[in-house]
């Protein structure tokens, strides 16, 4: 049994953990969390259902079921990871399983912004580097120390320069990835903008 889940909070500057590889392009959010698990009014119990159908198909051989991966925190994926549905349940399920950061070839847009919004940094690496990590048989015991300040991932004998959107990196370093408070700071600008919009006056339902 995993230890109790505690969501990230505040500044995120360093993430250390064991890597877990998941091979495949275009892994969609329906696979990360099948739709039937969306029938809930909170995210609490999603962790155990992550990749549920893929895991059942592989009968214990899915990376998320392997004993050696049970403490993994850094997910290594290929391209267009998280495509499809906008369900935030997908990164929420990964996070509740234990994932704290994702390194991949590329990410789908909505999945990426959902990850940022809940405090999971997503980094990219070229296809070649990802495949090298994934091919490495010892990868199951690859521990990385990710340093957000310098966008570096280091292990005993590996040093990787990670790419991340500058706006996302700054948000984590400043502790502003949970955007509500930052957005609310501009309350008067928001009200002015609302009053300036040309379509306000001719929208009957808004009155």
């Amino acid at each position, binding site marked *: 049994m995993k230890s109790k889940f505690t969501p990230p909070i505040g500044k995120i500057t360093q993430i250390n953990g064991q890597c877990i590889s998941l091979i*495949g*392009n*275009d892994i*969609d959010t*329906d*696979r990360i969390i*099948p*739709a*039937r698990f*969306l*029938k809930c*009014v*909170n995210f609490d119990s999603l962790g155990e259902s992550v990749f549920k*159908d*893929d895991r059942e*198909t592989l009968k214990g051989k899915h990376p998320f079921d392997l004993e050696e991966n049970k403490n993994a925190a850094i997910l290594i994926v290929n*391209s*267009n990871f998280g*495509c*499809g*549905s*906008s*369900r*935030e*349940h997908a990164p929420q399920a990964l996070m509740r399983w234990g994932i704290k950061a994702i390194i991949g070839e*590329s*990410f*789908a*847009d*909505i999945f990426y*912004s*959902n990850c940022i*919004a809940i405090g999971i940094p997503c980094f990219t690496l070229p296809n070649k580097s990802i495949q090298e990590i994934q091919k490495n048989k010892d990868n199951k015991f690859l521990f990385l120390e990710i340093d957000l300040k310098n966008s570096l991932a280091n292990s005993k004998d590996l040093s990787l320069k990670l790419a991340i*959107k*500058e*706006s996302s990196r*700054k*948000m984590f370093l*400043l502790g*502003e990835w949970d*955007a*509500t408070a*930052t*957005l*609310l700071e*501009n309350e008067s*600008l*928001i009200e002015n*903008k*609302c009053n300036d*919009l*040309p*379509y306000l*006056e*001719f*929208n*009957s*339902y*808004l*009155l």
Partner: protein
Amino acid sequence: MSQDTLFDKVWDLHKVSSLPGGSDQIFIGLHLIHEVTSPQAFGALKDKNLKVKFPERTVATVDHIVPTDNQSRPFKDNLAEQMIETLEKNCLEHKIRFFNIGSGNQGIVHVVAPELGLTQPGMTIACGDSHTSTHGAFGSIAFGIGTSQVRDVLATQTIAMNKLKVRQIWCDNKLSKGVYAKDLVLHIINTLGVKAGVGFAYEFAGPAINALSIEERMTICNMSIEGGARCGYINPDEKTFSYIKNKLCAPKNEHWEKAVKWWKSLKSDEDSIYDDVIKIDASKVEPTVTWGITPGQSVGINQQIPLLEELSPNDQLVAEEAYEYMGFKPGQSIKNIPVDVCFIGSCTNGRISDLRVAAQVLKDKKVSKNLKAFIVPGSEKVANEAKQEGLDQIFKDSGFQWREPGCSMCLAMNSDKLIGNQVSASSSNRNFKGRQGSPSGRTLLMSPAMVAAAAINGKVSDVREFIK
């Protein structure tokens, strides 16, 4: 960097501020919510002791979890009942307009908002659903968001977002008879790939797009996200304006002229600059069917499932996974693959014009034996209109089940699900593994007309043989 496109104009108009990290704070003109992605957002508001800032700018309906056979309350499924009750409670508490079952205006959120006239050119529209791109058909900038961003919109009516690049997809010539918007968009996704749109908004333009009805344009924009583009749009024209006119929430009286004048000013300038331009020849598009596990894996009805070596190296990994999952052989014809279930509905193709096309094909025909076929209208309005036109009777006579409105087997959150490794011919938008409710279920995406043809023959067929 793009300049003077509709996307640039609408983005700039709604920009509230530049945030410290470098992204923009964007005002959301219309926020749509439903029962699946909103409860946690309302929960977060409560936790943070925040109110809904502009309740009149959020509109709710219920679609994903509603049963389509028996909608009497409480729902048989306790979890579904709990979700609708939570939405009812949240809307009541925060004074949000809610189009519930029986209101005459309930339905799939992306069907409902346009038919109410809520969706208008020049707006920013957000919803906790990836198919929000649908609304771009009106020249609005519409995109899907996650639950944390739903919370942000509720609390501030804004979100933090990086400006997208703009790719114009210019569609020359026009679609031939028996070829529909669904075929065109599947063809575009196949041509560009499922991740080409990441970081982009897609502007669909050109003679083939201009020739489409508004509902067909919605089908195109709806599936932008399947090509990786969070947002897809089409410049508004006279068709757009006349579609909106006289709708419940459309501008009225003296406001109408003012609105149209403003809407006309929004379209991309003739000399606007795009980050990328792609040309597609619409006359070359055939009725298109997916054979794999991503919406990009499709072929024309007279083509074969591609061989591995015919695909680019980047596509080979997923193709191998698809061959194995679907149980089809590389080189096999897509035509004549037997189907077990036929589904017409969804935010992609559950509108009245979709039902009319399907009814045309099915009139005086019978659904093949041993096949389950059902129609789920996109909304209560679509259902009522179909009944007035007698379409429901045509469907029932043919052997299709006629259901109540909702998302249904597009994502199978209600009891409409594939069983085992059944093959479905589906007018929906995603053929992902397990998408239609069975972990081994197989989905072939196609136009509603093609689903109707498949239903009659019990196998994948060319609808053009039915509409000579």
